[in-house]
């Protein structure tokens, strides 16, 4: 295994991801864990596990931290927002300008990337869980399904119930009453995915989305959401190899760039 020369740490609201890259920007080490309440300790512990990077004394190679917990890392490390990191990671993976849709645990972002890989514009969901990964987690859990299985149900259904709410709390009660009316879980699931896709699509349009479309974050693994988003926005979505690691990967690339500068 090549040596880790730069590290990216993405302490998200739901999962914490760490990536180590080699001098040519290839991921050579990675880890992902659910985010713990003691984020600072968790980050320190994970940073110490990176092979050949300083052990408990902390990494000797450059680190860039991102995500909601970015301010919890040692002040000697640089902090960069998820927006810049996701754009950097995805641009390097797909090597294209366009519009990146990132569906994370607690927010969704639309980032317009220019030909040089820079951020031109971005938009984020407003102050609630509507339009985020959390929305699907809550409704899937209510149905006692995993998010993946719940998405597969949506795709298996030719029918779709119209669901007006993207508010997580209201959608849950709407779902319960639809079940009580005898609607099939499959068509309800499709309706819920549709509501989320519409919400994200309108965020994308407001940010002035341009083709091609790309996706990152945990939400990129959701087949139903991806299919319905393509349908709403009328364009195919390209995925990087490891969508969920893109924030950490971008952070690592920025760390490497800084080390080279």
């Amino acid at each position, binding site marked *: 295994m090549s040596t880790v020369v730069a590290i990216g740490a993405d302490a998200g609201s739901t999962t914490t991801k760490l990536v180590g890259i080699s001098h040519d920007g290839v991921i050579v080490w990675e880890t992902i864990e659910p985010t713990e309440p003691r984020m600072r300790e968790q980050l320190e512990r994970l940073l110490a596990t990176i092979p050949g990077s300083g052990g408990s004394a902390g990494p000797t190679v450059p680190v860039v931290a991102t995500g*909601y917990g970015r301010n919890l890392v040692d002040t000697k490390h640089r902090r*960069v*927002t*998820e*927006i*810049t990191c996701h754009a950097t990671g995805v641009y390097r993976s797909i090597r294209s300008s366009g519009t990146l849709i990132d569906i994370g645990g607690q*927010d969704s972002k639309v980032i317009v990337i220019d030909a040089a890989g*820079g*951020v*031109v*514009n*971005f*938009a*984020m969901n*407003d*102050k609630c869980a509507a339009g985020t990964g959390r929305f699907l987690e809550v409704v899937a859990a209510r149905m006692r399904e995993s998010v993946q299985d719940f998405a597969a149900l949506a795709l298996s259904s030719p029918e779709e119930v119209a669901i007006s709410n993207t508010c997580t709390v209201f959608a849950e009660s709407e779902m319960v009453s639809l079940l009580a009316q005898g609607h099939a879980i499959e068509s309800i699931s499709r309706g819920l995915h549709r509501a989320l896709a519409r919400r994200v699509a309108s965020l994308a349009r*407001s940010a*002035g989305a341009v083709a091609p479309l790309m996706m990152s974050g945990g939400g990129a693994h959701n087949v139903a959401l991806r299919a319905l988003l393509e349908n709403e926005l009328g364009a195919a979505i390209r995925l990087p190899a490891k969508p969920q690691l893109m924030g950490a990967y971008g952070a690592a690339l920025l760390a490497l760039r800084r080390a080279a500068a």
Partner: protein
Amino acid sequence: MSLANQLRYHLNVSIVGNSVLRLQRWQGEWQMSRPGSWQNAHIAPPVAVAPRLKELISRHYLKGQYAHLGRKVAWVTSGAPVEFLVALGYFVLYPENHAAVCGIRRMSESLCTAAEDAGYSPDLCSYARTDIGSVLTGKTPVGKVPRPDVLVCCTNICQTVLFWYRVLAHHFNVPLIVIDTPFLYTEATERAVAYVKAQLEDAVIVAERVAGRSLGFDKLKQATRYSRQACELWMKIMECGQHRPAPITAFDEFFHMAPIVEMRGEAFTVDYYAALLAELEQRKANNIGAVTVESKRLLWDNLPVWHRVRWLSEMLAERQVALVASTYTNAWGELAHLVDPERPMESAATVYLHPILNRGTGHKLKTMRRMVDDYQADGVILHSDRSCKPYSIGQIGQRNRLADELGAPALLLEADHNDPRAFSNEQVATRLSAFLELLEK
């Protein structure tokens, strides 16, 4: 005013109050002049005239506290014609300014809650909720707010004020003067001006009756003259921000604007702004920037987030960003040229038709474009204010057009000017940081 009350008013305000406030000002000036008294490495020390501002505002509210001894009190909307009230000797109170003070002093949340407990919707403007909450509970950070004898509501800022002032009229059981200003999609027509002027004339009659005296035309001209002078000086003060580095930021202006809003038409306001301008000119000459190291310059649109002004200003300064101008503070200077002291009624009718909020979104976009040029701004922060719908409407289109047509990146920042519950520190910090990263690239 009976002679005894007159004496008590003068004793409390002009003699005791003034002396105490003067002493506090000297104390403030002395403290500021001590070496090491200013600790922030990213922001320049406040201007030396700052203690005078504090004195002016405190004196204003002090006069309010003793107004019951004989001065009539008018509560007015921020965009209302005020010169005739000043000329009639009214003590003029601005509920919106008072609400902003509550916001700065971290009282607005509990006052908004009090209004909501009384049945007012959380969707109502947070200024209205703060003030209604203050009226209902009697709580205020300024000591005491005098009861109004008359209310003057001008619809040139929004329609919310119309309903808000009806609530106040009902609560206090006092006359309500409404000045309806037709919305300007393009230019003001002669009929619109005549319509507003006729209402102003009616307003004067009501205000004279309540005050128990008639309006002296010379006094009206004088108040209008002071208004114009203050607006002109205010404009020049803001224009100092065009200099690199900017000696004043919009964050500073949010505080220095208090006199132009609530003490228009007064000689002391003119004096204060003349002193502030002189000091800023000096800072310009010495290349002293309000932000110690100024790398980027931004324009702000919409009201300030009163409960987070300091937090935001420190965050930007740390990143070497100066907020060099705002459409909001600009609104109190840009109409100076329309004020004509020789024709006070006609010119008031024209001036009060033209605030930015009484004009189409195209006008605001044009203003922002011009300001981006004049102030050489690298980008724009559009505060999408949950409370102020008329100011926030059209911002998504404005953001896209500023970016596409001017190449000025613009950020839509969701907040609320006076309700901290509609503000998320973490979300705002992330958006703002990402925007600054975009500018720095």
